């Protein structure tokens, strides 16, 4: 038996032979830098990887199967858990899909409340993403800075809906509660403070030499490859594709707001080797998106209409038999598409949540060839994958 055949790894039914001198390591599933419980079977020749094969499913909670057992309204708390870092989007996507099935019109105030809560949640999610990315790379300071800002957002949202993480705020037909009277001044005060904090960020990490060198030119994804692999959201825009569902297929109140859509331009700069679609672009697009979210929230607070926050929804939600609807929303991690099929009963026939992180996992193996193990950490962090979105 030659030395080649001595070390093999079974990754499911796929047998990988390790070449001579290659190490096979498991990175995960318990690992502080894999953004959740994800395992990577890494074939490494010293520090350089031949390939990294992701293995997911450690957080699979059968949410889609549960969708067939509970009622339409009862499924809403489960959508929070599809992505608990950006739960408002998951709520909204499901609500829009069922509202399409039932033909419900959501009142304008509810649309604005949804937009405000979603944009705040987007900032919170990007803060976690950027903070953990910096921490994974080794810059430990930005993480508590990011979480401190996120605490303020949590406080604001708690005043709005009573929860800090899994909100169950958007309901079928509108939102669950109206805004408290003193909420908007508090929100505006925080938005002004956060603008200054973003400038601080730029000084703290975005222009930090070591941070830029770690990310610039790493795992460049050209636009055609990004579309082919199905990347969405900031990952797609960083590769240069100018597409944002909020602007191009507006839903809810987004048609009323003016905002820019940041796309990748090689922000790291030529001297560092920055290219369009590298990890630094993916990171910096998120920072710029935070600024745009602040703009949108300000506009929404200024223009908030009065009126109802919930449409007249029948007591038992029972869409027409064999109707189906797909809703697409621009979540923090990309386009989230909910596909709901109804068979005429009180419970859905099928609920499907297609998330951005799941598609991003498909590209990791092909991007990881030739990277170093520390680069794999930076790559996973720049794609902003989270385990609950992948596994559901």
């Amino acid at each position, binding site marked *: 038996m030659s030395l080649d055949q001595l070390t093999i790894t079974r990754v499911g039914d796929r047998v990988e032979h390790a070449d001579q001198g290659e190490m096979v390591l498991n990175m995960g599933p318990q690992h502080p830098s894999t953004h959740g419980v994800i395992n990577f079977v890494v074939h490494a020749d010293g520090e350089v990887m031949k390939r990294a094969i992701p293995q997911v*499913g450690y957080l699979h909670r059968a949410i889609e199967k549960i969708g067939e057992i509970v009622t339409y309204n009862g499924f809403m708390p489960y959508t929070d858990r599809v992505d608990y870092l950006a739960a408002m989007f998951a709520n909204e996507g499901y609500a829009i899909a069922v509202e399409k099935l039932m033909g419900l019109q959501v009142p304008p105030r509810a649309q604005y409340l949804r937009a405000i809560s979603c944009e705040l949640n987007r900032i919170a999610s990007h803060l976690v993403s950027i903070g953990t990315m910096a921490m994974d790379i080794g810059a430990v300071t930005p993480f508590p800075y990011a979480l401190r800002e996120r605490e303020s957002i949590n406080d604001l949202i708690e005043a709005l809906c009573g929860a800090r993480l899994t909100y169950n705020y958007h309901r079928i037909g509108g939102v669950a509660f109206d805004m408290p009277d003193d909420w908007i001044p508090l929100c505006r005060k925080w938005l002004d403070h956060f603008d200054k904090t973003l400038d601080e960020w730029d000084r703290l990490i975005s222009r930090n030499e070591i941070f830029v060198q770690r990310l610039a030119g790493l795992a460049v994804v050209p636009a055609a490859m990004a579309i082919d692999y199905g990347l969405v959201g900031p990952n797609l825009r960083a590769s240069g594709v100018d597409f944002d569902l909020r602007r191009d297929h507006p839903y809810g109140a987004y048609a009323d707001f003016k905002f820019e859509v940041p796309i990748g331009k090689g922000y790291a700069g030529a001297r560092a080797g920055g290219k369009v679609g590298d990890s630094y672009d993916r990171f910096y697009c998120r920072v710029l998106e935070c600024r745009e979210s602040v703009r949108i929230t300000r506009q929404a607070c200024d223009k908030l209409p009065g009126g109802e926050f919930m449409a007249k929804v029948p007591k038992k939600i029972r869409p*027409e038999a064999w109707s*189906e609807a*797909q809703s697409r929303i621009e979540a923090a991690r990309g386009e989230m598409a909910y596909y709901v*099929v109804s068979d005429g009963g009180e419970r859905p026939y*099928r609920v499907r949540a297609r998330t951005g992180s799941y598609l991003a996992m498909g590209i990791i193996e092909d991007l990881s060839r030739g990277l170093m193990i520390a680069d794999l950490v930076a790559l996973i962090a720049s794609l902003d994958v989270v385990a609950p979105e992948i596994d559901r």
Partner: protein
Amino acid sequence: MPALTAEQIHQRLAARFGEAIGALSPPKKDPFFTIAPEKLLEVARFLKSDPELSFDFLQDLTATDHPKDGVIKVVYHFYSYQHRHLLAAKVHADRKSPELDSLEPLWKAANWMEREVYDLYGVTFRGHPDLRRVLLPDDWVGHPLRKDYSEAGGYHEISNVRDNPLDLYLNLDRMVKAQQPPPPAPQPAAAAAKPAAEPPKGA
């Protein structure tokens, strides 16, 4: 770049592929149509390469199980970034041995999505380079999202049944009382000699 409506896309495909394309569903729901399974790869190639359609993004690939009709319907959603139009199509796979052509050669996004459909529904995809389970452990038996799935006996001796906690809670009093020794018989003389009620605590 004009975005075509569902009817226009359906007409274009029906003109080219004839009976392989089913009728467009009524406009009350999100419109979709069926594609014959043997023509799937050809139709998909046309969807991607035709300049007026140019569906470059495989937006979603999932399935629904219909045991009463004996099919597993695999649902495809395509989107075009160039023209900004969306398409939903379904392919029926026979439930007894569901097998379809893989779209992985055309869109790499199909790789992981077809693995998920294989994992949860049992549909195999011909030509997929790496068809193995993704969300469940590799030695899992069965395909959970099927309507007739039942977890037989747990996994590796980890049971998946337990007593209803509500029953346990309701019967807890009775169970605890049954285990305690019976209380001692009350002494009338000692009871009469007890002082008056104690003054209430606090204010």
